[in-house]
């Protein structure tokens, strides 16, 4: 047995069913052993695609995603994917090949100090120095990746270490369960809850990560408080739940932003007061006391002072706070806002209106589980606003890093993880180009991912900001020389169709949702379409622009 065998055994003993890996010189000993591994190795066409696929797999399933690359450019190509996982707290183990130990530090061929490069974007990292350490190192990496606040863990593997003889495989598990919030804090939180007249529950991505959706809904329904969600908190409440006011923040629903602005108590559950959600921080929920529930002590009072911090298991804390509140006047006010500011899907002209198409797509795809991955930009915000989600694990979106190119590889990972689900990747003409090579992965594995590609021939979100904030000076946002995406998809062996007007929508969605294998629906939309509402930078969420 050599070091590479120890790694394979560790991954097998973690119950991993597949990894995403791209070979190269330094990682060859490991790839040689992957041929007999009990788990599958999926080959992407770019290491970034592999990392983002591992990320999508982890988000969709709740299991640890695994990606493997060689040294040098293979490792650096993982960096964006690792950072993406770090900022959204996604459990991943990333293994990079490295030159042999005698060569480290000599500027050898395909040598980079990936261990040093990744300090700021990993939950933890290792550089392996002895074959005997590998089994425990990998097992511990999995433990770290999934425990507490999840995140990516990097293992850098020098080639000679992977070839060293290994005599035994020993690992002592260290993981403990999540701590409980102190009882006195729970009592203080209950006291605040019972006296609140205008409470709002602010639901973040931590709810889905903690698998606390049922407990969260029980808590929300017990208190009857209105609920707003961050981008990654969408799906924590069912989309049509009467208490749910919608997404808050920069492109949030007006009802959600108004409710938070008038709240006297904000209950932040697995949310981190990110700037996209809060707008101008000093004017966010200006009159509200704050109860903050999270697993990560470093988030407590990091950006907004909490009156009561409940650091620990969400499921335990939520259960303790599930008390009925007498807040009928407030509930009526929030419902009035919700009714007054509901979405209007009547758009003039013949051009396809993306929000309405998304809503229609959601109506047609309602059988079994549907997972939607989004890329980054205007289409991402339209998905968040108009595609109804009933579980956070059904909405895979790059929130923290905002990585263009996330959508397609994440969809690949999600489809591998949930083979029975319908997986729809909603992308834009800018984003799809960033990992378009992964169409080859769709074809290779015949993954029935449906790509809904909104094409406005622009980097749309940047163009919108240039229109509003840069006096219509359009710098580097013209993509009117895009390739023919239908021909590109077909060249990769992926079925494709284009629609350009409203009377083609039903046929297009039928093609998208009923094609058996992978397919791409290319949808031309108006280049001047904007995302509204919009809270400008440095402004309170109360002041939303509406076009």
């Amino acid at each position, binding site marked *: 047995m050599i070091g590479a065998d120890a790694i394979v055994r560790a991954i097998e003993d973690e119950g991993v069913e597949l990894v995403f890996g791209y070979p190269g010189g330094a990682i060859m000993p490991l790839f040689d052993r992957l041929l007999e591994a009990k788990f599958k190795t999926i080959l992407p066409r770019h290491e970034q695609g592999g990392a983002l696929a591992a990320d999508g797999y982890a988000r969709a399933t709740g299991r640890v995603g695994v990606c493997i690359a060689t040294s040098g450019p293979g490792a650096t190509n993982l960096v964006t994917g690792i950072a993406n996982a770090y900022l959204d707290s996604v459990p991943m183990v990333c293994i990079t090949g490295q030159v042999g130990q005698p060569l480290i530090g000599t500027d050898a061929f395909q040598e980079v100090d990936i*261990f*040093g490069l990744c*300090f*700021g974007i990993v*939950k*933890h*990292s*290792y*550089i392996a*120095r002895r074959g005997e350490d590998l089994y425990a190192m990998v097992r511990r990496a999995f433990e*770290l990746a999934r425990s507490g606040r999840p995140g990516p863990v990097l293992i850098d593997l020098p080639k000679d270490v992977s070839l060293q003889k290994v005599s035994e495989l020993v690992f002592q598990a260290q993981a403990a369960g999540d701590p409980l919030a102190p009882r006195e804090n729970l009592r203080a939180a209950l006291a605040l809850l019972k006296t609140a007249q205008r409470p709002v529950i602010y639901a973040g991505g931590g709810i889905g990560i903690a698998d606390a959706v049922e407990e969260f809904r029980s808590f929300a329904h017990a208190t009857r408080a209105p609920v707003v969600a961050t981008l990654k908190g969408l799906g924590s409440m069912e989309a049509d739940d009467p208490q749910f006011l919608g997404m808050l923040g920069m492109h949030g629903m007006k009802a959600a932003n108004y409710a938070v602005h008038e709240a006297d108590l904000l209950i932040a559950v697995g949310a981190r007061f990110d*700037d996209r959600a809060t707008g*101008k*921080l*000093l*004017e966010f929920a200006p009159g509200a006391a704050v109860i903050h529930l999270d697993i*990560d*002590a*470093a988030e*407590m*009072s*990091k*950006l*907004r*002072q909490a009156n009561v911090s409940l650091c620990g298991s969400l499921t335990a804390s939520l259960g303790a706070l599930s008390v009925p509140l007498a807040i009928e006047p407030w509930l009526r006010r929030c419902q009035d806002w919700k009714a007054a500011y509901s979405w209007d899907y009547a758009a003039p002209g013949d051009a396809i209106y993306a929000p309405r198409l998304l809503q229609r797509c959601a109506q047609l795809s309602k059988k079994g589980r549907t997972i939607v991955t989004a890329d980054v930009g205007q289409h991402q915000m339209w998905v968040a606003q108009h595609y109804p989600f009933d579980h956070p694990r059904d909405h895979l979106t790059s929130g923290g890093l905002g990585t263009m190119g996330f959508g397609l590889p994440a969809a690949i990972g999600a489809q591998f993880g949930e083979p029975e689900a319908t997986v729809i990747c909603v992308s834009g003409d800018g984003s799809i180009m960033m990992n378009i090579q992964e169409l080859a992965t769709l074809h290779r594995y015949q993954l029935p991912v449906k790509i809904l590609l909104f094409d406005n021939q622009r980097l749309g979100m940047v163009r919108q900001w240039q229109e509003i904030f840069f006096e219509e000076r359009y710098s580097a946002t013209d993509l009117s020389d895009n390739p023919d995406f239908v021909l590109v998809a077909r060249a990769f062996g992926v079925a494709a169709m284009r629609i350009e007007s409203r009377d083609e929508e039903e046929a297009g969605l039928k093609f998208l949702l009923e094609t058996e294998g992978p397919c791409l629906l290319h949808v031309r939309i108006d280049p001047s379409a904007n995302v509204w509402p919009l809270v400008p*930078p*440095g402004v309170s969420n109360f002041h939303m622009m509406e076009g």
Partner: protein
Amino acid sequence: MTFSAEITARHEEGVLERILRVCRHRGFDWESLRARRDLGTVSIELSGSSERALDLLLRQLEKLDEVLSITPRPSLVDRRLPDASKKLAESLSG
């Protein structure tokens, strides 16, 4: 605000870099640093200054897997958490 703390950590490859990176990234400038290895652990005496509250740094350092304990030195600590949080919020509001 000046701060001072003693950090004990497992000596693993990169531990000092990791700790100093967190300090820099989170807005804490070091002015004095002493580090000593003793078998499998490293003891670090770190002092410096920041506009941010010390708790913000300590909680981030506590998340590092190698860190075993952190002891702020009380005579030089100015925790002022509420004010410091507000100052951060002001700077972010621009």
